[in-house]
């Protein structure tokens, strides 16, 4: 699993990346009350605003950590937004992309680097 400084994560399996917000991000947001997911078939460049996660405190854009085409979205989180708070990096995933450039994943932080990065934020 790889992470961005904006607290998205990417989990790659073959040429498909599963994307969501990190556990740290869900904790910062608080109770998530609404999620807006992209449409299947949409193409995103790396860094494009792809989804919206809204909590009782704020509405935040989720930026696509890598480029690709949306091949699946997690409809379960739109009806049950607490999945994101309960299991952000598991059942709380948001959408899956077919990678346009698998090399982009390598440039992201691994779990250890991300953990160090989080320490610098406090």
């Amino acid at each position, binding site marked *: 699993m790889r992470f961005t400084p904006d607290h998205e994560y990417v989990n790659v399996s073959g040429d498909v990346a599963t994307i969501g917000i990190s556990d740290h991000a869900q904790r910062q947001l608080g109770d998530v009350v609404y999620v807006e997911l992209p449409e299947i078939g949409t193409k995103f460049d790396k860094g494009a*605003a792809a989804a919206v996660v*809204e909590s009782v*405190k704020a509405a935040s854009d989720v930026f696509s950590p890598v480029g690709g085409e949306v091949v699946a979205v997690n409809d379960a989180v739109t009806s049950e937004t607490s999945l994101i708070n309960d299991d952000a990096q598991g059942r709380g995933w948001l959408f899956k992309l077919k990678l346009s450039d698998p090399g982009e994943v390598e440039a992201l932080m691994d779990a250890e680097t991300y953990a160090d990065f989080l320490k610098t934020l406090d």
Partner: protein
Amino acid sequence: MRYLPLNEADRQGMLQKIGVADIDALFAAIPAARRFDGLLELPLAASEMAVERQLGSMAARNLTAGAAPFFLGAGAYRHHVPASVDHLIQRSEFLTSYTPYQPEISQGTLQVLFEFQTQVAELTGMDVANASMYDGSTACGEAMLMAHRLTRRNKAVLSGGLHPQYADVAETLAHMAGDEVVRLAPDPLGVEDFSAAIDSSTSCVIVQSPDFFGNPRDLSAIAEVAHKRGALLIAVFTEVVSLGALRSPGEMGADIVVGEGQSIGNALSFGGPYVGLFATRLKNVRQMPGRVAGETVDAEGRRGFVLTLSTREQHIRREKATSNICTNSGLCALAFSIHMTLLGGAGLQRLARVNHANAVDLAGRFSAIPGVEVLNAHFFNEFTIRTPRPAAELVEALARRGIIGGLPVSRLLPGAGLDDLLVVASTEVNTAEDRAGYAEGLRGCV
């Protein structure tokens, strides 16, 4: 003490910074023909009394709404507003700062907005309403943008019965956003067919009922055509009193209902400020623009009111907000809410019946005039007549007889070949004597 923060050196510095020679250069984008050249012919100074005297004599040349039998509608309607409305809106419970973000000091305002929203939702037959918008036309434009967000499409189809100024506002917004607008031909008889205009890129159909020419529309049929192709129906009204007599747009399948609320609680005031009403179905609420007041309980379980769903708004969501018009017409909405409360449901229905009866009476008198034809098969308090001479001339001739006769369609739709059409409204303020006088005047003018 005068507060003039800038001196000449500051101005020069600012102009230099942005690379412009002088202040006139900032107006270069405005075509020369539209610019006023030179100085206004005003005296440098005059006493307060002299100014009052002069302006008073200029104002006396107006034929104002209250000074003559008044039959003008077309988006703004003269109604009786009880004196108690003006008294109640000035109560201190309703005084608050510009935006009631702090519930602990704004309960009066928040409660009245909550009640206002409830009234709008009930009137329109929808689940939720916002705390109001600037006016009917901007509410209509915002509804179009909301439909684009909901459907992820960007083409709006505008009925030929939509108020031309509402259509202009929608077109302006669409132009700035690069969206598409299809404006159907003016439709005085209310018989247009939408099926050819709606395709798979259409986000919404915007239909006014009663329309600009006064025809109530069967929105159910239009909703069906729109929904079949994945488009939304935006229902518009300019005369909110009509909702006391007609089936609500919500019942007829509208997805978003917007309109002008001026008729209730608010005077004509030369065109504003007015109050835009905006309502939709619950499933669309997160894409609804504007502020929403919600009911909740405080830490001790007592009923209270707060702004809710405000993460959609620009103070939190910045440039991704559902709208950058998150303000509302608070005072006008308050007046609306108080007047509507005074009327109650039965009172509104009675008011609507009186309006309709007055208009039916007037149309009957017109039908008896040779050369004058009432176009509408059905109408509420407003209808369109065909006149044997250009309606614009006729209105001038009527004004010389002390009658404000209505709106010549050519005023808002010049060059559409509708010069012989006159839109006429008759509300509860018009007496039988007024109507008889109008019919007689019209007979003399045609």
